Each structure stands twice: as structure tokens, then as C-alpha cells.
């Protein structure tokens, strides 16, 4: 009986994938799929039981449970089931949970730790299999510690990994730019929309913040009166240093190589925008493109062997891929003669197989977020958004969520879309929030196995 339930879930997953495409709009050129409707797959139900706690830690236990529950909801791998009071405590009643069709139950407790922090004990129960996964104990800082929430996010990611074998994206932050009149602020927010704050601002036009793979640094550019500078900010100390670039009126779109040793960026040289790579430590840089037209917005493949970038060599911006270090470029986005397709801001997915970008396929259309197959040039691209204007997509390290800027259609701010289910949630509200870049995982925790 329990195995049958699991089997039905698997069938749902298989069939859900097939029915994704909208009927093709006759206006839409060949090669573009309006994937407005996603797989309507059934997510397994998951419940987080109230965590046991001594009286003085009941509040802390509730806030841990709140963070875990929301993170697991935002992971889009489960549907959250509210724990009925009859199942809220005591031994986990597999038969009762199973008749409620719940597949996973997270149970545990919070206890004081010797260092003034907390010890969080978590057990994941697989209900159909009537199986408890190994219980783990995680050390958390005190609830008033600024690192408390991030430590709980890391536990959420560990629960996702325990159940699915795949990485989560809760223990992350998103940097972005808030456009003001005359200046742009550099901003940061936690993956769940908490801790929104300004890192720096009022010094000019800040553009294109980009995380280093070690998550310790963020690169960005500053556009002044006739000058342009590439900076690297240490995210722990807040110290800022200048990165070596050629002298140019326009330095833009910096991005780190996967090993963190190089920054690729675009610079205006002799009336063209060319791509350069700068060694972060030695300060040496080299030019990697030589025309035609403008090349900008580089993004490395996860293995570092290729660079996706923008070029307007066909008149309008399109997405190309070339070997890193330079060489022949391959057009990725569909080019239809006479149609003003416009595709910008490519970013390579952590999986290495997909590239997101934004643009439109007809003249004066609204902008939408798309996904293309990185390994099949000119193949079908998939449109992920349908309402309003949607721009500046950036991948989460879990490889299934994308943050983007939305305006119109009742939305205004930064939003997160789950590429698989199509579910969209708000991350930060407000006009002029742009150029978001999702961090790598900031905190990892494996916890101590405590037997059982």
C-alpha cells in the first residue's frame, strides 16, 4: 500500500513533464516555445511538526520551525501540510500521516547548547516507507545572533538534500541594484526576502553586481562622468578595491570565472565593446574578442571552458557562445530575418545545460525571461514568464530557481520563478530594483549524526 503511493507520485512526475507546451500562437516565430503553462506535477506533501523545546526555548523553536517551513515551501519540491494537533507530538504515527497522504514529516527538538547557542535535532520521516532517516544534530547560534537565520537556512538545504539528493538554495543571498535619481545603490537580501539592506550607494551609477564563486566577494562597476571603474568588494570586511582594466569610458558586466581567479568584463576600446579577462591577483588582463560590433555580458559555463555573451553583430543583441579565451562564436538564440529579436543578459545555469536571458522576439514587445539549451544552438527556446515586463534573470545554486526583475502585470520588484513548476514568489518589492545576482551557497552544514 505504501509503495503504491510512492509509485503514483512517480507516474505523476512522468506524465506532468509531457503536457507543458501552450498551443502555438501563430504570431510566435518558429523556434520559440511559450511555456507559460508548466508541468502541473504533484509535489509530495511535507509537514514540519512543532519542535520540542524546554519552556524558555519555545519561542526559539517556533522561529526555527517557521524558517524551515517557509524554506521548504520555497524549495518548490514539496507542498506544505499543516500539522493537525493530533499528530503534533509523541511518536510519529506513520499510518495516520499516510492516510493524510503526507509523504515526508520533519520532526525534532531544540535544546540549549554549552556555547550559549542552540542544538537543533532533526529527523526526516519517509511516511510511505515507514522509515526514519538518520537523526542529525545541528549547532545554531543564539536566536538574536545575526547569523541565526542563515544557520537555519543551511539546515533547510540539508533536509532538501536528505530527501531529494539535490542542493537547496535557502542559505543564499541576492545582491542587486536599486535605481535612484542620479545614483544606484548596491543592495542585498536573504533568499527568503528577509534582511533587506543597502551595502553602498550615493557615489554614482553602480551596475552589474556579480558574486565570486567563493561567495566572499562581489564585483561591480561604477560609471562616473566620463570614467568607468571595476571594483571588488570583500563581503566580510566591506573593503573595496579596484580591479585592473584597460582605460575606457565604459567598463561593464563583470563576471567571475568558476575558479574565482579571473573576472571577465566588457570594455569600450576604439569604438567597440570587447570582452576582456583580468587576473584578479596579478592585475594582468587580456582581450578575448576582436569585433565585430559590440560584445558584452559574458557568463562562464560551470566548467569554465566556454563563455556565453551578448553581441549585436546581427544588428540586434543576440546570445552567442564561444570558447573561453576567445575563438569562433556560435549563435544560440533564434534569428529570423526581418524580425527584431532582442535577447540580452545571458547567464549560464549551474547544470551547464541551460542559459537564461531576457528579451523579446518581436519589435516593441514586452520583455520576458527565456531559457535556451546551451548545447543545441538555434534550438527551441522556452519563455518562462508571461505577464508584464521581466528582465535580468539569475540562477540560484539549486539550478531550478531564477530571480528576475518584474514590472507591470501587477508586479513591481524582484521575483523568483521555479523553472520546473512555474510558481512565482515575491522577493523584494519596489520600483527600480534591477540586475539581481544570486549568490552561491553561503553556509553548509552537515550536522552531527546522533545515532538512533
Amino acid at each position, binding site marked *: 500500500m505504501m509503495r503504491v503511493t510512492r509509485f503514483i507520485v512517480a507516474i505523476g512526475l512522468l506524465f506532468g513533464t509531457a503536457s507543458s507546451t501552450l498551443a502555438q500562437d501563430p504570431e510566435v516565430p518558429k523556434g520559440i516555445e511559450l511555456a507559460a503553462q508548466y508541468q502541473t506535477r504533484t509535489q509530495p506533501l511535507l509537514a514540519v511538526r512543532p519542535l520540542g523545546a524546554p519552556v524558555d526555548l519555545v519561542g526559539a523553536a517556533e522561529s526555527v520551525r517557521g524558517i524551515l517551513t517557509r524554506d521548504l515551501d520555497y524549495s518548490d519540491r514539496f507542498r506544505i501540510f499543516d500539522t493537525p494537533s493530533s499528530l503534533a507530538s509523541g511518536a510519529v504515527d506513520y499510518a495516520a500521516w499516510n492516510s493524510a497522504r503526507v509523504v515526508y514529516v520533519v520532526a525534532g527538538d531544540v535544546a540549549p547548547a554549552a556555547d550559549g547557542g542552540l542544538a537543533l535535532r532533526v529527523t526526516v520521516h519517509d511516511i510511505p516507507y515507514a522509515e526514519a532517516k538518520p537523526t542529525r544534530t545541528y549547532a545554531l547560534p543564539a536566536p538574536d545572533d545575526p547569523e541565526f537565520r542563515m544557520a537555519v537556512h543551511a539546515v533547510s538545504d540539508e533536509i532538501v538534500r536528505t530527501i531529494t539528493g539535490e542542493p537547496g538554495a535557502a542559505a543564499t543571498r541576492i545582491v542587486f541594484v536599486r535605481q535612484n535619481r542620479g545614483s544606484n545603490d548596491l543592495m542585498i537580501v536573504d533568499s527568503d526576502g528577509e534582511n533587506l539592506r543597502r551595502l553602498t550607494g550615493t557615489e554614482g551609477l553602480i551596475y552589474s553586481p556579480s558574486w565570486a564563486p567563493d561567495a566572499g566577494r562581489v564585483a561591480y562597476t561604477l560609471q562616473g562622468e566620463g570614467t568607468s571603474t571595476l571594483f571588488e568588494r570583500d563581503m566580510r570586511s566591506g573593503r573595496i578595491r579596484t580591479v585592473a582594466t584597460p582605460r575606457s*569610458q565604459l567598463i561593464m558586466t563583470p563576471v567571475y570565472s568558476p575558479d574565482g581567479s579571473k573576472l571577465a568584463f*566588457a570594455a569600450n576600446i576604439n569604438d567597440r565593446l570587447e570582452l576582456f579577462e583580468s587576473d584578479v591577483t596579478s592585475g594582468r588582463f587580456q582581450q578575448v574578442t576582436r569585433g565585430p560590433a559590440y560584445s558584452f555580458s559574458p557568463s562562464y559555463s560551470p566548467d569554465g571552458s566556454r563563455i556565453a555573451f551578448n553581441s549585436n553583430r546581427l544588428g*540586434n543583441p543576440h546570445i552567442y557562445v564561444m570558447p573561453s579565451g576567445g575563438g569562433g562564436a556560435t549563435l544560440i538564440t533564434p534569428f529570423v530575418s526581418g524580425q527584431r529579436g532582442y535577447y540580452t543578459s545571458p547567464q549560464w545555469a549551474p547544470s551547464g545545460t541551460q542559459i537564461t536571458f531576457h528579451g523579446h522576439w518581436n519589435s516593441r514587445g514586452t520583455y520576458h525571461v527565456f531559457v535556451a539549451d546551451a548545447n543545441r544552438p538555434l534550438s527551441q527556446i522556452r519563455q518562462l514568464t508571461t505577464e508584464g515586463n521581466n528582465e535580468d534573470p539569475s540562477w540560484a545554486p539549486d539550478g531550478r530557481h531564477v530571480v528576475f526583475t518584474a514590472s507591470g502585470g501587477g508586479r513591481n520588484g524582484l521575483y523568483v520563478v521555479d523553472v520546473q513548476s512555474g510558481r512565482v514568489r515575491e522577493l523584494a518589492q519596489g520600483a527600480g530594483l534591477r540586475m539581481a545576482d544570486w549568490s552561491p551557497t553561503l553556509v553548509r552544514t552537515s550536522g552531527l549524526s546522533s545515532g538512533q
Partner: protein
Amino acid sequence: MLRRAVLFSMLVATATACSRNEPPAEPIPPTLPDTAGEGARRAAEQARQDSIRRAEEARREAEAAAARARSILEEMVFFDYDDSNLRPDAQEALARKVAVLRANPNVTLRITGHADERGSIEYNLALGLRRANSVRDYLTGFGISASRFTTETMGEDRPLDPGSNESAWARNRRGEFSITGGADRLTAPGM
């Protein structure tokens, strides 16, 4: 900018007043009835008054010409959507600038390209630079030295009109000009 123009004309006025040696015009004093001598004196005085008036007029004209030259140099040019090609109206505005630049060989200009809010911020930075460079190339095509121009881009982040509609976008897709040197004694062409 207006304040600078006012300050400039005040400076010109002061300079003109200092360089003139004639005493200020005075009422003609009553004298002995010497009709012939009286007529000559009146004529001389009239000539003096006329020369003062002419100098004053010339000063006013020079000021007006300088203001005209400045406004021609600072006149913005506008672009079509996602385009850095110069429209006929922009070409006319630039041809007027060429004449002023020829008449004032020391003047240097900064050309700033701007884009409307649609499209990616990065692409719009590049588009702004393309617009500024396209303006500079048109001007140098008339034989004006490229060393007299610097170009820059402000992308979509310095709109003239913060609205989100076609008329705001049309005003925001532009090239702006600021005089960076050689404008102490601007003259208008063909004066």
C-alpha cells in the same frame, strides 16, 4: 547652466566697461551764444554719443551671438528606439553645431548618450555610448578634429522625463552636449 550664462554675460559687460576710456555721457552744459561753435560742439557730442551707442549695440550683439552659439552647441539630439543612426532633425542640429565649432576652433565638447528605460540596463549603456560615438563621428565627418570631443554614456539612468510612455521615452533617447573648454569668447557663425 542658466546661472553660468548670466555670470558669463556679466563678465563680458564688466570687461567692456573697463576697456572703454570715454567718460560717461553727460548733459551738454549751456554755453555762450556762439552759433557756429555751438553747432560743431553738438555734432561732435552727437558723434560721441553715437559711438557709445554703437559700442553698446556691438556688445549686446556679441553677447547675443555668444548665447546663440552656446544654445546651438548645447541643443540635444534625439534618436529612434534602439537606434544610434542620426535622424534628419538630428543631422540638421549637428550641421548647425559644425558651423559654430568652425567659428570657435578652441571649443571642446563632451557628448553624453542616453537611452530610454526599455531593454536591458547593460545593453542601454552600450547603446548610449553608440549614440554618443555616432554623434561624434558625424561631427568629425565635417573635418572637426576628434580631439575636440569626449564621449560617455549614462545608459537609461539619467532620464529627462521619468514617465513610462512613448513621449517620455522619445525625450530620453538623446545625445546631450556640454562645453568643456574654449568658450570664453564664443562667436556665432556668419556674423
